[in-house]
């Protein structure tokens, strides 16, 4: 029997793709209005589309002092909803931001859209979630994040779920853009799913 249990697999891109929101020509430290949000979203979308399949774009907002709800919704809310809608294929977004007040607006936008995104304090930091995911998916996501990379069989065992239920949950998380789902062939003639965290 071949075990696909692996050590943690690094992200596809060798050098992380980082988009410094405050560094661009969008308003510097002050990000307000939907208009500005749209401009940032379009620039982010362009970078996202240029990534290889499985690629991760880190959206670094740490240099931003002020972000209002409209900006947060128009830039991140809309983009995350498009990622979850499959518009960018298997390309992912990770928010690089510390746990501070400004996150409230991102959180509010994503919650209203019943969406979530992965957040890290710094590139390579421990992932957390901003926004909302259904309760029953939280444990699944946490288990995948803890493992770094895990097969469906191992994950099902860990969570005490049957393989189908486990696969359904992980597939949903992959669709939301919160994990990466890989299909590999496994003996005998079957398919083995592996889930990886994206940050």
């Amino acid at each position, binding site marked *: 029997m071949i075990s696909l249990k692996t050590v943690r697999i690094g992200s596809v891109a060798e050098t992380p793709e980082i988009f410094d929101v405050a560094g661009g020509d969008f*308003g510097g430290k*002050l990000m*307000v*209005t*939907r*208009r*500005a949000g749209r401009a940032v979203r379009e620039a982010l979308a362009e970078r996202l589309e240029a990534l290889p399949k499985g690629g991760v774009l880190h959206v670094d907002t740490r240099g931003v*002092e*002020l*972000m*209002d*709800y*409209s900006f947060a*919704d*128009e830039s991140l*809310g*809309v983009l995350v*909803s498009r990622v979850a809608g499959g518009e960018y294929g298997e390309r992912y977004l990770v928010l690089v931001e510390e746990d501070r*007040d*400004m996150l*409230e*607006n991102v959180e*509010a*936008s994503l919650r*209203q*859209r019943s969406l979530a995104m992965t957040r890290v304090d710094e590139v390579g930091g421990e992932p957390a979630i901003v926004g909302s995911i259904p309760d029953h998916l939280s444990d699944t996501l946490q288990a995948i994040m803890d493992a770094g990379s895990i097969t469906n069989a191992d994950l099902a065992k860990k969570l005490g779920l049957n393989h189908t239920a486990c696969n359904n949950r992980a597939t949903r998380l992959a669709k939301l853009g919160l994990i990466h789902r890989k299909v590999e062939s496994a003996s005998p003639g079957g398919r083995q799913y592996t889930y990886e965290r994206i940050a």
Partner: protein
Amino acid sequence: MSGVLTLGTLDPAFEAASRVAGEPVALDLRSVEFVEPAGICGLAALLEFLIPRSEEVSLALAGRDVPAYLERMNFFRLFGDRVRTNADVASLEERQRHNPGTLQELVKFQTEEEIPGVVRRISEILENQGYRLRERVAICSTLSEICANAAEHGASEDGFGAFATVQAYNHIVSGARRRGEEVLVAIADGGVGIRKTLSRNEKHAEHTTTDNDAIRHALKMGVSGSGELGRGGGLTLVAQISGRAGGSLSLRSGSGRVTAYHDRKNSRTVPDFPGTFVRVSLPRHLETAPQEKSSR
């Protein structure tokens, strides 16, 4: 007119304005001793309504302080050539303006593009006043959301756009017997108002019977005219931010006026007037002063 020019004290004038049909109008503000931002924005919107409907609008002011403050707030730069006034505006304009760094002059805007500039200026004022980043973020994101609403909804056919003004005080203006500091944000637009905006969307039908119903509904998360997902969050967050600070968010639209505090909302019916008026009170360092100290 009482001693303080607020949105509420303008209600009799709003009521009378609807009856104006070409004749000259005299606005008597001689009893006004103190003007708060919502009063200036309200007066500006009232004048925008009256000027095209009246042969001549005149403004009577008393004393030196109120005309000087209005001048400092750029009021006469916006209206000086459109209304007649007994105030000696020329002499006020000649004075050396000191910059107290605590106010945003009355500014008229029509598009979203102008908003970051206004917000940046307010952020600087607050920084000068020693407001921490966290407080500035709360205040400025409040301001930008309301300005964005005003720019979006205020640009109706005969609308004048929107007015905004901000003043930081070293004392509490709203309510009594409390010590602390306060920032007042006021914005007024000449748009169709909250009820009409929400009425465009059928799903709000049962919440748009009265202006007060519509305003209360608009304060809920996710309620917007377009009904698009993600919209309608700004106002809700503004109410939360002001409520948490111990302040309030007050909305006047049509014949409704709702004030939201952290634990309650008060509604009252006011004279019908076009547009939407927003007043946000953001106190800090609040302290409920004991009765005996309240006169200090």
